[in-house]
């Protein structure tokens, strides 16, 4: 709902700054792209757009997780910038269909920004590594105050700024970005539009690659059956899933108990 881009850029930059620190914890920073989309949508006036962009980015990145600290694209950055640009696109061209704006913003802004996020993250970690040496010095001297102070310096400098600043600049010059995008030939835009709808395939495939399908295929099949052939909703699916797992656990316990009895009998 903010017409003033400068103010919007500032508010979102502050939001990104703090949310990045939560994301760093890797536990209490869950689902940042959807949150980013919602907040950016709230600030700029179109929550639906933000929701959709956040959702597509989330679905794309379902299978991506920083196992042991490996670098992955920062889809939170992508969702905030992407939502902002999509909203600005619609402001500039009210006749544009929202789904088109979404898909185009994803392809031209959100994904590239997320990829750039990898580089930004690396730079930030290098800075962090350098600052950590101060903490180490403090530990070697037994200087608790030094450790504490350098921790805070490090924490405040290497978690938020490298994402907040791009967001600020990106939104501040958002209208210029939209003009640049509008110069892209419509064929390309059409391709981007289609690609945006296909992206969730990638996320799901990546996710499935981490599950032992050979072992768990009956459960996948059960889920498919419930969704494809019954009028079950997602919540209904959750109940069914819980029931199936409980039954499995019960049967397994029974079998294990019987095995123990057999062994017991044999010993006697």
């Amino acid at each position: 709902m903010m017409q003033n881009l400068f103010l919007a850029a500032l508010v979102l930059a502050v939001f990104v700054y703090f949310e990045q620190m939560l994301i760093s914890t890797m536990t209490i920073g869950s689902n940042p792209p959807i949150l980013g989309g919602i907040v950016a949508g709230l600030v700029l006036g179109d929550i639906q757009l933000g929701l959709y962009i956040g959702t597509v980015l989330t679905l794309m990145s379902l299978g991506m997780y920083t196992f042991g600290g490996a670098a992955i694209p920062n889809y939170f950055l992508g969702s905030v910038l992407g939502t902002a640009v999509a909203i600005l696109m619609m402001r500039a061209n009210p006749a544009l269909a929202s789904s088109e704006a979404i898909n185009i913003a994803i392809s031209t802004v959100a994904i590239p920004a997320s990829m750039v996020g990898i580089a930004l993250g690396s730079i930030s970690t290098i800075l962090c590594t350098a600052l950590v040496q101060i903490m180490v010095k403090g530990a070697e001297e037994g200087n608790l105050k030094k450790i504490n102070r350098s921790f805070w310096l490090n924490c405040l400098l290497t978690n938020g700024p490298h994402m907040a600043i791009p967001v600020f600049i990106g939104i501040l010059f958002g209208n210029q970005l939209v003009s640049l995008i509008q110069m892209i030939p419509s064929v390309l835009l059409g391709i981007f539009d289609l690609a945006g709808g296909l992206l969730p395939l990638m996320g799901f495939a990546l996710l499935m690659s981490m599950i032992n399908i050979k072992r768990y295929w009956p459960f996948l099949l059960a889920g498919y059956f419930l969704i494809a052939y019954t009028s079950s909703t997602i919540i209904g699916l959750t109940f069914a899933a819980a029931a199936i797992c409980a039954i499995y656990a019960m049967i397994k316990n029974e079998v294990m108990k019987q095995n123990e009895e057999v062994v017991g009998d044999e010993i006697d």
Partner: protein
Amino acid sequence: MKLTKETLRKIKIRHIFGIQQTWSYDRMMGSGYCWAMLPGIEQIYQNDPEGLRKTCVDNIQFFNTSAIFSPLITGVHLAMMEADQEEIGQNIKTAMMGPLAGVGDTLAGVIINPVTTLIACQFALTGNWLLSLGLILLVRIGWIIVQSKLFDFGYTKGVEAIESTTKNSLMTSGIELVTMFGAVILGGFIPSMLSGIQIGLEYTSAISLEGQQADKIFRVQEMFDNIAPYLVPIGLVAGLLWLIKKKNMTSTQILILIFVLASVCYFTKILIVA
């Protein structure tokens, strides 16, 4: 010397929120770990500056594990430190890093996060942003509670905590059940979320209807729908899966592939997104 409740609380909060804030390439979670332990180290070694120094140095060493389970290790470590068995505490830290990392990352990254995320996405796609937001906040608060409980569990049980978590039956069967749960949900979610991806090819052919010539448009998608629902997206996911597993494609390569696919389909209408 027994740690006060106040000190324990400070350490717990520092740990949950702060341990990864200074993640560096050389020590990874080590620097954050040391910072989180400071209140306890300060209290225990208040009369022993040399011991304090040595403990700080020991605690700022390399440490990397799944962020979910690190409070557990910290709790146990504190129990050891309190009982003046710092050496054993360090050994436990080092020994438990690896195993817990594998379990925790898989649990969070492959099951818990995706399933909760998918439900949040479902709410989001139906325009229900409040519910989606609510779920996200709920999950985050849930993590804080889980980590807090793990910390307490580690502290009160000490070494027992390690033994009971590595004891095979409880841990592995728990993970197995969660994976099964996740599989059912994914098996249903994936088709329903990708239902818009369909084959756009159509062909017209003249048919006679009640004696009159007419052109009927046949949609190829209907043929597939008659066999089973959602075949197209499932087939595509299976195809991508094969590329990932057998051809070792990276996610960036898949991304490029999707854009190539989109280019082809834009002109040929093989695939459309309804």
